[in-house]
């Protein structure tokens, strides 16, 4: 069965002949929504966004309209809008495509949003590795400024706002909104404690700040186009709009695929959209929302109740790809990075790889994350190196439990969820690893097998 993509954000991505300059964008109907937006009342746009139910595409899935509502407008301080383009969650590669191929869509979405929240200044925080993207954005902003689509007195509306592109220096933690804010301010990207530093009240330069993901801001443009109600009709209630699933791993056709929320199930995404697994392989596990999401085991049965009370009983292939369903099965849709693993995957190695990443990326500010995550890395590395112990699985689980929920920012969870879920679902493999190595050692062989780990 063929599943037709519903491309909203990625409408023109990879379209032959579509270029990332402003003329091409305008030719395809670009900046019409901004023209429309500046004639609207800012609070009406906010109301539309709230009605649309659009949830943040960066990972947490928090309703964007609600986030905007929390904005402290009474402080008298300037309001800032920040676009989080630090896309650094392993397995995610959607924002890069937007920036590379359709930067004006982001700029339009941002200017609509900036107008809606009456931002004084907008920033795009782009990760340091996206050098090409940075250059593209700089050029696109220049083009837009020439046409008075940003800058002073935008389109004669009396509203002025500019966009500053700020490059990161290569740190995962810069994607955490308060870390990102610190980074823009020129400090180490150490996330701030909340309370009291909620960005909506005390954000960038201690002023009210909204930080949204690239995809979320692009959605705003489409919300203005089709109205909050129109947008909310895509997908299901509570899971509105489209999502771009970045599928990677052991599938025939990895890549990004845009569907309305709930329009496909995980099985359809893997087998129909991505062409299934390589011949002769069996599905072993899926991480559905970027490497920090909890892993799902292929032979699990997922039962429970959805938010609206409907009961479900799904196999892994039946899970609808949306926020709530993935939450209900104990994982999350996160940033939309679907990582597929087939039966050739060594789970200990996979976890060692993930742990390596998080240990490297911990900012080092607070104790549990700074010390705990590298510890987990050292344990999994040792296991891969041939010195696994049977009790390591429990130790890993316990370390992860001591980190999650005890840290300043969500990195603690991001780093411990993989460990918790890998151990919960594949503990036997971790124990088996130790036994195997012991057996090989007994036979006088090298305990560690060859790995492809970095």
């Amino acid at each position, binding site marked *: 069965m063929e599943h037709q993509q519903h491309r909203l954000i990625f409408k023109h991505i990879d379209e032959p002949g579509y270029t990332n300059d402003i003329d091409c964008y305008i030719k395809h109907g670009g900046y019409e929504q901004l023209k429309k937006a500046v004639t609207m009342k800012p609070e009406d746009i906010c109301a539309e966004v709230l009605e649309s139910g659009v949830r943040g595409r960066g990972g947490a899935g928090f309703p964007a309209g609600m986030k905007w509502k929390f904005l402290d407008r009474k402080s008298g301080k300037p309001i800032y809008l920040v676009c989080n383009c630090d896309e650094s969650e392993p397995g995610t590669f959607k924002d890069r495509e937007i920036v590379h191929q359709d930067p004006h869509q982001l700029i339009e979405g941002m200017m609509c949003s900036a107008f809606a929240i009456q931002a004084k200044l907008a920033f795009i925080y782009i990760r340091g590795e996206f050098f090409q993207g940075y250059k593209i954005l700089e050029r696109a902003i220049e083009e837009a400024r020439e046409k008075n689509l940003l800058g002073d007195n935008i389109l004669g509306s009396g509203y002025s706002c500019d966009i500053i592109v700020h490059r990161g220096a290569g740190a995962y933690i810069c994607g955490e909104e308060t870390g990102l804010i610190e980074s823009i301010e020129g400090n180490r990207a150490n996330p701030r404690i909340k309370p009291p530093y909620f960005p909506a009240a005390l954000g960038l330069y201690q002023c009210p700040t909204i930080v949204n993901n690239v995809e979320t801001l692009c959605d705003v443009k489409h919300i203005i186009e089709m109205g909050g109600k129109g947008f909310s009709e895509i997908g299901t209630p509570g899971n509105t709009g489209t999502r771009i699933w970045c599928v990677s791993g052991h599938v025939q056709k990895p890549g990004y695929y845009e569907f309305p929320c709930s329009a496909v199930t995980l099985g359809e995404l893997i087998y129909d959209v991505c062409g299934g697994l390589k011949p002769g392989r069996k599905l072993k596990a899926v991480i559905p929302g970027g490497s920090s999401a909890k892993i799902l085991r292929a032979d699990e049965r997922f039962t429970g109740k959805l938010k609206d009370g409907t009961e479900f009983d799904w196999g892994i292939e039946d899970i609808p790809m949306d926020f709530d369903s993935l939450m209900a099965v104990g994982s999350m849709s996160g940033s939309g990075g679907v990582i597929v693993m087939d039966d050739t995957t060594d789970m200990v190695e996979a976890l060692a790889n993930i742990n390596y990443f998080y240990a490297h990326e911990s*900012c080092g500010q607070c104790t549990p994350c700074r010390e705990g995550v*590298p510890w987990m890395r050292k344990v999994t590395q040792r296991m891969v190196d041939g010195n696994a112990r049977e009790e390591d699985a429990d130790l890993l689980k316990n370390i992860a439990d001591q980190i999650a929920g*005890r840290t300043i920012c969500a990195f603690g969870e991001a780093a411990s969820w993989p460990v918790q879920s890998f151990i919960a679902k594949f503990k036997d493999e971790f124990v088996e690893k130790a036994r195997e190595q012991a057996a090989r050692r007994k036979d006088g062989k090298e305990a560690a097998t060859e790995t492809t780990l970095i």
Partner: protein
Amino acid sequence: MKVDSVVDYVTINIDGEDVDVPKGTNIIEAVKMVGKGKEVPHYCYHPKLSIAGNCRMCMVEMGMPMRDRATGEAVLDENGVQKIGWMPKPTIGCATNAAPGMHIRTNSEMVKESRNGVTEFLLINHPLDCPICDQAGECRLQEFSAEHGRGYSRFIEQKNVKPKRTRLGSRVTLDDERCILCSRCIRFSKEIAKDDVLGFVDRGTYSTLTCFPGKELENNYSLNTVDICPVGALTSTDFRFKMRVWFLKRTHSICTESSVGANTEIWSREGKIYRITPRRNDAVNDTWMTDSGRELFKEVEVGDRLTHYTIDGVHKTSAETAAAAAKLLKEGKVAIIASPHSSVEEQFYCKAIADRSEATVSLVSHYGATDGILQSEDRSPNLRGALVNGLVDQLPDADLSAVAQQIESGAVDTLLVVNEEVTQLGISAELLKKVKVIYIGLHANVVSEDAAIVIPSLSVFEKDGSFINQSFRLQRFKAAIPGPRGVLSDFMVLEHIAEALADEKIPSGSIDAAWEHIAKGVSQFDDSLRWRSIPEEGLELDPTAFLDLPFVETKNLKYDSAAFKEAHATPAGA
């Protein structure tokens, strides 16, 4: 004390007990207020610094009374008591401020378990070199590991290796492996010392404390970072590897560096001082003191210390010397050069001697620049004492040219000098030869050499006494170490001389016996006040009589001359 009447109190519940705390108090302080030895363990939190919230040790469970989201009405349980909505995760006490009805658990399973986790994490890469660590005995990590740790290690991997002896400045040496990255030192440098030179480099578990490129931790407050370091990472280069802290005796004292009068603690053993650290007094110095103030004890040790009472170069007893001095003073034509470095007690008897020998009294100012923090313009600890005692009624001059003129004109025959090197203050050595000198001082110098009578004095570390600081706060200091053998406390010798001048009986010699006279004789002191009854945090005196004097202090950490004047100009009760 000024009472701030606008403080709002809120009732919060800590471990089942209702407590009233000022609104906005954080949970660490609130729990401290409960008393009973209760404490929320913490590393990065410091009452005088901004909140960082990075150590995660002060985790507590927090809950608020439940309200129905829709109606806003209280949600009650079956007993009609409002239900408490407990947060699913523990929260840090340092950044949680008391709000009405807040419930706190400081000792639940979740709290214990998270403290246990943090302790384990802090220890896995810690070198555990307590046996050679200076902080041992006063180390928060050591204390909390014993209290909240699991007692054994599950860590079998390699520990991180970091530099063991990094020089941060001339007085501070860093052991990076011991550092728990609490950032107290960074915040102190930035917020209090206003010398932003410290920061972290590298990331994650490899984060390392360091100075900014080309900078050093060289400000006069650098050693405070050593005090507030909860572990043995920042060490005093001077104190490093010298002494185990549990062998040291702690004595409360007052810093004599300037009129701020920072409260200090002297750490000594067997008559030797090893270090001086600040003692918290929120009205005077918070928890800080200068580096230069910590080194004052070394000045006492160097140089040629006066150790004997001498008359014309011959060793005598203190009684003989006092009698000889009294005899000399009785001859009249006396000028006294008193000192703002003397204690209140010494100045009181100087005043008595001045009255009884009809002497003129001069004081020399010791002024310098202020650093705006804890070093005021007046570099003497007790100028206010001289005023309160009535020893002088004006602020001192910079030199003694007035006395020099009197000597020149023959109006002065005898000079009683208290610890001043007068030859550098306008009285030349030749001129000094024209008069008979009674010298009271610590060290031998030009003045003591030619003095007819020499009375050795004790340093502030060797005697009991009191000072009055810039804001007219009477503060007490105690003897930490013994002085040279046979040398009496200065006030006793002065007392002997004063009594001899009036032909009264020899006084008893205890400081509180002296205070019977002092309390009666000085109007600012309550008649029942005794040295022993001066509170640890000091006693505020009434400064109204002196408000019009042009004191040199402008503004520092806890003092603002304009505000001080204003606060005391309005009569009490107005």
